[in-house]
């Protein structure tokens, strides 16, 4: 039984707990501060939806997040801003090393982004969610209210594609389950099964994470914050500006639906069955979401019931014969535990821990998943393209893709790690010459090695290998934000 304090839903922005799925209309506004005082006045009072459950759902919901540039523009002291995580302080689009790690090179280069590159960082992100038919009025009202303090840099429209991402696959199936009841003890212990239940501190600042520790965030002198901020659990003599807040990663990803299906169709020689097979191999699921790894019949902590589209691991398919090792969903969430599986008993445990179990070692290239989970909150944009259209038309007229959003308490260990060490990695799980089949940039490695392949291992011969994959996804913009708790939001709007 945990003795941890209960979670104050009223101090947490709703997006951490809800995906706002009833609110099928949404719009993301990127703002720049024009008049600091007016901006602060508005932010100090604007109604923001919390994580408290309300039935029936309200017509609209507003969420507010800040970039580090934005905090400075609002007049928050440098000492406070600089106490946030280094990645958040630096920002996504103005560091060459970060660009190399995230695959923001070639056509993805931040200098080519529509927003978020150096000198074009948004200050404030407003996320507007509305029930069907309610967005236009809400958008107009919010726009009018914040006009005095801000310039609108971009208005990212979204569209409701009914849970299907633009390439045509069911999306958003895999999500971690947050330990809202704080049942899991806050301590550092090895976990030998994949669990979908995840410590609150992996997503919310101010709570213990999977290591049983607290992520760094600004802890202030209570004399400065008064009673306006909660105290830090791990340092009760300090006020916790991070508590109940999260980091939010936003990336605008344009998807070349025509390019994707036409490439797959060419590889399949026009054969419809083979086309589906190749496309699902690249994703790791059938278009309706059924995982390729096979009938899901595992019981996973926090992972729903057997038969659920998310109740599976790759333990029974270690060589990627059913779901290729490099499939998009396998790269994004390898579903493994802290130690490769093996026989029970301390001898087997010791052998695996010391690296003396060759078989375990051969399947130990990918790190423990539980430290690298993403809470995804993205929305599609643009007009859906049907498979028939994608194959028939030379190229699309419109722009379609995903406004990728994920929440996490540690940008470096979660989003950046998944993007760098798993998705974009050209040696993921030992695969040669390929990166994520959907997200890859196909930029050759430093030594000229091609990275545009995709292999589909098989039991009865050398892996089937596609070559010459074009780039299907292009980054058009991106930034890191801090999604504060409600009290922290009001504090930020008033502090100097």
């Amino acid at each position, binding site marked *: 039984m945990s003795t941890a304090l209960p979670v104050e839903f009223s101090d947490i922005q709703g997006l951490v707990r809800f995906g706002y799925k009833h609110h099928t209309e949404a719009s993301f506004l990127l703002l720049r501060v024009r008049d600091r005082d007016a901006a602060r006045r508005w932010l100090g009072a604007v109604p923001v939806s919390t994580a408290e459950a309300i039935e029936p759902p309200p017509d609209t919901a507003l969420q507010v997040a800040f970039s580090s540039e934005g905090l400075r523009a609002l007049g928050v002291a440098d000492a406070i801003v600089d106490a946030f995580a280094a990645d958040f302080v630096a920002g996504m689009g103005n560091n060459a090393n970060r660009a190399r790690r995230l695959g923001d090179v070639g056509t993805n280069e931040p200098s080519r982004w529509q927003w978020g590159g150096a000198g074009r960082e948004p200050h404030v992100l407003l996320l507007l969610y509305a029930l069907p038919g309610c967005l236009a009025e809400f958008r107009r009202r919010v726009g009018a209210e914040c006009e005095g303090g801000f310039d609108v840099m971009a208005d990212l429209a979204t569209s409701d594609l009914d849970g299907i991402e633009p390439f045509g696959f069911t999306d958003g199936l895999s999500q971690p389950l947050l330990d809202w009841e704080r049942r899991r003890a806050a301590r550092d212990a090895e976990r030998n099964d994949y669990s979908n239940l995840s410590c609150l501190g992996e997503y919310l600042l101010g709570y213990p994470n999977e*290591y049983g520790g607290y992520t760094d965030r600004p802890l202030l002198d209570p004399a400065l914050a008064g009673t306006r901020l909660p105290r830090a659990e791990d340092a009760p003599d300090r006020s916790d500006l991070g508590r109940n807040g999260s980091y939010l990663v936003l990336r605008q990803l344009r998807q070349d639906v025509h390019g994707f299906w036409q490439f797959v169709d060419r590889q399949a020689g026009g054969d419809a069955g083979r086309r589906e097979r190749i496309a699902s191999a690249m994703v790791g699921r059938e278009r309706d979401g059924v995982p390729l790894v096979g009938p899901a019949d595992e019981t996973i902590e926090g992972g729903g019931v057997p038969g659920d589209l998310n109740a599976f691991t790759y333990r029974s398919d270690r060589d990627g014969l059913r779901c290729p090792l490099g499939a998009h969903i396998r790269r994004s969430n390898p579903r493994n535990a802290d130690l490769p599986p093996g026989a029970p008993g301390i001898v087997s445990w010791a052998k695996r821990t010391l690296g003396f179990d060759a078989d375990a070692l051969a399947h130990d290239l990918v790190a423990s998943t539980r430290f690298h989970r993403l809470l995804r909150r993205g929305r599609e944009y643009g007009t859906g393209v049907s498979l028939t259209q994608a194959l028939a038309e030379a190229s699309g007229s419109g722009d379609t893709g995903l406004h990728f959003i994920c929440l996490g308490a540690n940008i470096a260990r979660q989003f950046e790690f998944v993007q760098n060490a798993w998705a974009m990695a050209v040696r993921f799980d030992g695969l040669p010459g390929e990166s994520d089949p959907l997200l890859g940039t196909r930029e050759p490695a430093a030594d000229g090695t091609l990275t545009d392949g995709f292999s589909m*291992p098989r039991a009865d011969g050398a*892996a089937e290998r596609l070559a010459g994959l074009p780039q299907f996804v292009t980054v058009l913009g991106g930034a890191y934000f801090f999604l504060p708790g409600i009290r922290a939001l009001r504090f930020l709007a008033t502090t100097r």
Partner: protein
Amino acid sequence: MVVAPVAAGQEPALRALLHSMNAEPGMADPRNGVVAFAQFDRLHFARLALLDDALQADLRVHGVEPKRLATCLAFIGDCDGPADEVLADLAQRAGPGLARIFAHCEGFAGGADLLAWMRAHDRSTAASFVNWVGRSVRQIREESALQRALAARVPRRPVAAPGEAERLRRELGAWVAAEVGAGRLTLTPAAPTPFGWQLAKLANLVAVPLVGIVALPLLVIAAPLFAVLLRTREARDPELCPRPPSADLDALLELEDRDITNQYTAIGAVKPGLFRRWLLTVLLVLTNFACRQIFTRGYLARVQTIHFAHWLFLDDKSRVLFVSNYDGSHQGYMDDFINKVGWGLNLLFSNGVGWPRTRWLIFGGSRIEQSFKYYQRRHQVPTQVWYKAYPGLALVEMKRNQRIRRGLEQAAMSDDQALAWLRLL
């Protein structure tokens, strides 16, 4: 491994010279005009790094007033064969360039005998890890070419008939033999391990356990005292893990992720007192023993992404230098460390000033994620010049390429074995 203090006032000029060796920040131009690393085909990695004494100030948390130490230049290489031979080869073929570099160091007068000077400043490591003992630069390059050729050649269709997999393997074998005959591929047989090395390894294998057995009664008697001494220190030793300044972090990041492999150079003071000094000495002897006798085949416990790693005592064992070459990004390397061998890091590095609090030498410490991550970044120093002999190649494929070659050279295989071999391609 040559380590020498930089002469007073020479550091800016030395930095400029080192910088001129690079094609991009931190990455040596393999054919640069100072030391053209590429002409030394027994050299896997090389680095030149300046080691300052900035963190000596940390000793004050132990109430010790630090001595000022001169900034040192470290020249570190990982090579095939005896290091001394490679040093002589370097002196012979890159003498003028090396002399230009070392002219910035104390005690290197113009006209000095370069080789004798380098030997005089050559330090032996306290412990070293080599990913795959005996795998040479030449072998790595040849096997990579072999893998590329075979991967392009292998038929990528299901193998149906019995015996077909083995027939395919033999056909590919014959084709490779023809390519070798035509001079398009080279597969040099592995050089035998020199007799002297085998003897030294055997001596190490016998000596370390022997000393252990002899000392065992003493160790048993001393164990309770050791436990008390250790635990009092672990409870009392101050942690010092402040967040490194962002400018320092940027200077390190600028050099990273330009190849699949990255470098890591870190330095720190050993906790004062004989207890930590002796403990660390013994643990490094044991680490070296394990790396030499046990972890010689592609893994250091669970970590399979380290090419080479070295621990070196400096300044009368008051400081330790740690250098490594690893695959992947820094964040991944550190997460691998914490999650896979956090206990091993604690064992050694908890003897360093400021390490996050450990329990019983292996628990806690590096698992205190935030403190550990700040600590290791804060102790890292930029590697001004870094060379890798096989850009783009990762350990995981070197290992696979070895298996491909071994399989190719095997006389006969069962169908299952041949199929498994085909799937490597």
